[in-house]
């Protein structure tokens, strides 16, 4: 009891995280000790247990005893913002696992550690959005990245996967190094690592002549660059297409969706809460990165034939749009970013769900975008789903993708960031070119090859149906998501 009194009620706040860590240990022990089964379905069993764990975690998060608290000596902070992010991260992780169960079995990825690593990385993502201290931030990012390096290389008999794992590791470690250097500079010039303390120190710094703030600025720049690496924003995006292409598709889906939500949420917290008074210095970095990402995303994807590379460039473009919201530094900007995050998550889940569920005649998973031809006749429902999602990704009204984009542009205009809004709409026109290419290939082209289409397994079908329903529902009635995010953004600023 002595030990507990040291932290008072602090452990109440990390019930969900401790539950995940505990469950991960249990699953690891279970996976190691269970005898080798001839049908090799261990990864699926552990996968379902992982889903169960994550669902329980969501329940724990929502019904947990504390919803607003700073604990562990200012190391973690729970508030409605982090809670929201945690819930959508967990939802996306669950969906990705549901999508990939069947894929893992077919591709012969039988190692159950895959699931345990996903569980550990989701634990780290939960801690990441709650962390309130530069050290905590760095540790949680490293925890998550380490798990990812391993998953990226999880298909050991494939050269691509190994290469992707290596590239991801080298560049991820490099990015972490830059991030760490940024934290060091900030600490060195302020003597503080806590986000709240830093915020207090920096309040009003913009209006006073500070003698030695250049070191702090260098620190912030390095911090931003590190985050941009992790987010695959444009000048620092080189690794993304290769890693997305090389890694197994289920892993790509995981990379493309889950960590981005967490890192972006954390980045928003650091920039808008701690360094808000230095808006002028970091806004220009974000502005440049956002412009570059939108252009790279739009023009880079034009020439791609590989689906995963194309989706990688598309996600770079979407990061550019998300950074618009962050660059504004206003309530509207934050709100539009949150709306975009949720809608981007659902749209990407649908896309990856469809990509994961189609196979060519000889049972291989599809690689090229041309492999989709004939989908309209072999499976019209899936073809319509993919078409609507692509229109939505391109931001064509009245689909959900438009709802998220128009508010972003509105935020950019109201923050007087005119170049962002103009380049944003123009690149969205350019990018619509490659999104409608999917539709062209599925519907307009004469199909030479027929796709082998086996009926979707139930888990995938449910995920695709749900995300599609969300996309359509938000198109018709976007009020709920706007209301929710508005409250979050307002609460964040208070």
């Amino acid at each position, binding site marked *: 009891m002595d030990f507990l009194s040291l932290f008072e009620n602090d452990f109440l706040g990390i019930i969900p995280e401790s539950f995940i860590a505990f469950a991960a240990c249990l699953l690891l022990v279970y996976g190691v000790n269970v005898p080798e089964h001839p049908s090799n379905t261990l990864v699926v069993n552990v996968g379902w247990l992982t889903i169960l764990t994550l669902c329980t975690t969501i329940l724990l998060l929502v019904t947990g005893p504390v919803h607003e608290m700073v604990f562990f000596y200012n190391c973690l902070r729970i508030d409605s913002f982090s809670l929201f992010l945690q819930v959508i991260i967990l939802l996306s992780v669950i969906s990705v696992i549901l999508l990939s169960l069947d894929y893992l079995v077919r591709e012969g990825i039988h190692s159950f550690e895959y699931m345990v690593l996903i569980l550990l990385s989701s634990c780290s993502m939960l801690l990441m959005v709650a962390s309130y201290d530069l050290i905590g931030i760095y540790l949680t990012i490293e925890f998550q990245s380490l798990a990812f390096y391993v998953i990226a290389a999880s298909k050991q008999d494939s050269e691509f996967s190994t290469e992707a794992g290596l590239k991801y590791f080298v560049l991820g470690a490099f990015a972490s190094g830059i991030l760490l250097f940024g934290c060091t500079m900030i600490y060195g010039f302020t003597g503080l690592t806590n986000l709240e303390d830093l915020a207090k120190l920096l309040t009003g710094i913009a209006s006073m002549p500070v003698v030695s703030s250049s070191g702090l600025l260098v620190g912030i720049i390095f911090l931003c660059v590190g985050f941009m690496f992790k987010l695959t924003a444009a000048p620092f995006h080189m690794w993304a297409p290769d890693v997305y292409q090389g890694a197994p598709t289920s892993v790509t889906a995981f990379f493309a969706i889950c960590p981005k939500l967490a890192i972006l949420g954390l980045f928003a917290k650091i920039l808008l809460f701690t360094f808000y008074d230095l808006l002028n210095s970091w806004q220009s970095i974000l502005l440049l990165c956002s412009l570059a990402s939108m252009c790279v995303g739009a023009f880079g994807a034009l020439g791609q034939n590989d689906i995963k590379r194309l989706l990688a460039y598309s996600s770079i473009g979407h990061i550019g749009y998300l950074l618009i919201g962050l660059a504004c530094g206003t309530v509207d900007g934050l709100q539009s970013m949150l709306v975009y995050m949720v809608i981007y998550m659902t749209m990407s889940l649908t896309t990856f769900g469809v990509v994961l569920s189609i196979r060519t005649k000889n049972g291989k998973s599809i690689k090229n975008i041309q492999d989709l031809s004939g989908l309209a006749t072999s499976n019209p429902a899936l073809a319509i789903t993919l078409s609507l999602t692509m229109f939505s990704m391109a931001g064509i009204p009245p689909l959900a993708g438009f709802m998220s984009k128009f508010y972003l542009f509105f935020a950019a205009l109201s923050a007087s960031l005119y170049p962002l809004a103009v380049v944003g709409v123009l690149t969205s026109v350019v990018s619509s070119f490659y999104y409608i290419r999917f539709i*062209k290939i599925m519907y307009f082209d004469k199909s030479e090859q027929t796709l082998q289409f086996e009926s979707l397994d139930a888990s995938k079908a449910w995920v695709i149906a749900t995300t599609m329903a969300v996309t359509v529902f938000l198109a018709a009635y976007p009020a709920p998501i706007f209301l929710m995010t508005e409250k979050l953004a307002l609460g964040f600023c208070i």
Partner: protein
Amino acid sequence: MLLPASLRWISSIGFWGLSAGVIYQYTMYCQEVNTFPGGSPLLITIILLPALGALALTFISDENKQLQKVVALNVSLITFLLSLTLWIYFDSSVSDFQFVYHANWLNSANIHLTLGIDGISLFFVILSALLIPICILTGWSSIQIYLREYLIALLMLETCMMAVFCLLDVLLFYIFFESVLIPMFIIIGVWGSRQRKIRAAYQLFLYTLLGSVLMLLAILMIYYQTGTTDLQVLLTTEFSESRQMLYWLAFFASFAVKVPMVPVHLWLPEAHVEAPTAGSVILAGILLKLGTYGFLRFSIPLFPEATLYFTPLVYTMSVVAIIYTSLTTVRQVDLKKIIAYSSVAHMNLVNLGMFSLNAQGVEGSLLLMLGHGLVSPALFLCIGALYDRHKTRLVRYYGGLVHTMPVFAAVFLFFTMGNIGLPGTSNFVGEFLVLAGCYQTNSIVGALATTGMILAAAYALWLYNRVVFGMPKPEYINSFSDLNRRELAMFLPLIICTLWMGIYPEVFLNEMHASVASLIQHGSFR
């Protein structure tokens, strides 16, 4: 359909009697505005009905193609009947928006769904509802693949188009203005006739999208500046002159592509030529009107000073377009391209009338839009009928059709005359009023625009001459089937309306007077 013919007739008469009764009761019920919180629900019913029909189509099994067609046709016909009740209950003595319906949509951002029509938009709603059943009928036997998707696309298109004409919120207007692209892109790309269709579909999509994103930025700026996107509120707002210029140009970028005006008209002939007949009918009948409607509803009343400032620009571009496209028409060899270019000429004449900013001009332009919405789709239907039989659209393969298809020759002649603007047809009244309005403001522009009418007679008569008269070309034409009853049934409403508008246009003008007068007064143009 196993019923004997007599029973089928009785049951269909019973069905239509019943639905007419239900529609009558429903509209009577809708008139009691006080009982509904959002206002009269008539408009939202009309808009949502096709979408519900499209939803119902998804539940019909794939084999039962006849049922799919019957359901789609009946839904669109009921929508048309309902839209006619709008005209019946329309009060032409006031210029306010009528049948206003209000619903919350995005409360936190203060964007609401407001529907309403006035004398300007009334007939466009009815025209959209009239053309969709005709489109469904044209595809009755010629659409072989993806029939269900075809019908769904048409019905969704109807919902979007009617929403565009009814919405009184700028942002929602933009949303539906753009969403027309999705079904249109698919209609051209999937059911278009040749491999070039993909290029056409891309051109339609990208031209229109590129034009309209600038309008989106302008709308968002207006929203940021005023905090609302409600048109009725915005009409009472006055923007500074420099802002007006900027907004006007941004709106212009979008509407000019849709109209289309000359430098950005290239998508139209392509899209028309490659589209299936129904696609051309919708494109010519409604989608071209979205641009001119946008000018009239948004650019002119919201930014009156910028409108006055930019009027010479519009005049110049329109006159160039009229003369250039009329001349271009003469050298085309593709039947559809000829009609497409003549549409461009007519729509630019509409522009001239609108920007003459007096009552005759604006009313003439409205009437010309309606007339063109009847005549041009009918011409595309004629060419569709030819294409269905002979699978070519090149003029040189045709000749002497009057010997083999006399009924077709008569119908084609009627609508060719309509296209020229023969007195007694709808286009004459429109063109006459437009030119009269034009002469009042700028006689040089009026004179130049009048040459367009001469050129129209030249190309239209020459086209008719080449296709219908002369000796038949037996080596190319091998089937001798004239129009069948279904095709005649599609032409009949268009013929009646064209004549009606040409002989007694006051019925239509009467509903417009109040709204047009308030539009002109609002901008204090006169």
